[in-house]
């Protein structure tokens, strides 16, 4: 396994407020990395940095794509398109479900093969609403569509911000099933420890903008090293 991401001495601020302080983190190609932590810990900010949607106030976030390292300042569009992200509350374009699914391919100038789109909709269990306006879908269906919209693209990495939050077990199982079949790097934010355990190779615990512990999923959950991680995993209120 080679490294996909390298983060060094990262500090990120919004105005005077420091959101994230991360001395070092590497993410391997092909692994599933779960980020857990309380609300406001800086998980979504870290994901936006990894998506290169923001550049850190200090330090570097680098991604290795097609035999070269890039940071957010020098990432060409072609490489940018190798990073896919699914937001916690995805936005549906004012188009049909099928057109939403095809949007990423369309902007990349790729050939739109309807059979391929329909196959993806079948997997997402959305084939029956293919021609419906996407905004008419339920919350769970919209999340599935947002996931499909990224999965259909040839990205190296998929970043997911709580893709199953507020979803019923059927939707969760469907999304997890699709994620488990992926060969590419997946970085997922989740509040669900069981989900992190089921999906992740490695887990990182963020607390007040600091990555307190990173480890392989099984030892991370069975024998957390950091006392704050232990408290968090045992359900104590952390402030």
């Amino acid at each position: 396994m080679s490294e996909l991401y390298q983060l060094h001495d990262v500090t990120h601020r919004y105005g005077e407020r420091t959101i994230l302080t991360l001395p070092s983190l590497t993410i391997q190609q092909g692994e599933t990395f779960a980020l857990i932590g309380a609300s406001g810990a800086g998980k979504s900010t870290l994901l936006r940095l990894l998506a290169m949607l923001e550049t850190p106030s200090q330090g570097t976030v680098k991604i290795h794509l097609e035999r070269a390292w890039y940071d957010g300042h020098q990432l060409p569009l072609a490489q940018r398109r190798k990073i896919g992200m699914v937001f916690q509350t995805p936005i549906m374009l004012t188009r049909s479900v099928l057109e939403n699914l095809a949007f990423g391919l369309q902007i990349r100038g790729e050939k739109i093969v309807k059979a391929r789109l329909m196959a993806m909709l079948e997997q997402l269990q959305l084939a029956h609403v293919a021609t419906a306006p996407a905004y008419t879908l339920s919350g769970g269906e919209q999340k599935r569509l947002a996931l499909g919209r990224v999965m259909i693209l040839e990205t190296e990495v998929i970043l997911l911000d709580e893709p199953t939050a507020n979803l019923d077990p059927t939707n969760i199982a469907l999304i997890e099933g699709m994620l488990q079949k992926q060969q590419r790097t997946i970085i997922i934010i989740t509040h669900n420890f069981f989900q992190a355990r089921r999906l992740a190779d490695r887990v990182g615990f963020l607390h007040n903008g600091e990555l307190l512990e990173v480890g392989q999923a099984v030892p991370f959950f069975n024998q957390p090293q950091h006392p704050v991680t232990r408290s968090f995993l045992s359900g104590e209120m952390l402030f």
Partner: protein
Amino acid sequence: MTTFIQGFKEAILLIWSLDPTLLEIINHTLQVTLWALLFASVLGVPLGAMLGLTSFRGKGFVTTIIHTAMGLPPVFVGLVVYLLLSNRGVLGDLDWLFTRQGIVVAQTIIGFPIVMGLTMSSIQQVNHQYKTELLALGVNPFQLVLTMIQEAQKGIFVAIASGFGRIIAEVGAVMLVGGNIEGKTRVLTTAIVLETRQGRFDLALALGIILLGIAFCLHLVISGIQGRVATTLQ
């Protein structure tokens, strides 16, 4: 009240008789209005969208200028365009003073800030998350502007309709730049002013009713286009 009834009757008679002078005035009105609207929209929609999508130092000041320009006094615009197009003006060589091209220039200047300002505001009203999500999906800057225009299309059609309303109702600048020359630059608004000055109120009212009718029909067309675009996008 009698004048209003008389005006209404006159309007019907004028339309019924297909008066050639009236048809010519309507034709000129439509020509200058639609050209000016086209230029104002072609310039105003993309620029407004780009301004709505970007943040830069001094944007607040630029926005204040645009909002001021949305209320530009037409007579002032007319005066400036008159001076620019006059023999001694920098655009004097064009020989557009007292022509319909000159009127189009003045009307474009009046309509453009309205279309741009309202487009900017429509784009800003689209959830900020749209821009982030589109960037995450891999759009280039051109695709970003185009998609945001599609997403804000309802507001943008309102911007175009507002620009149209301002342009078709314009009289001060048109009078100054066009000169209200019969058969050449006379349009419905300047014809109304002329008939009013001559005390022919019923005819002036009739022209006003026709102007309203045309504006109504064109707004119907704009709404129709918007409806079709919305259906296509869905």
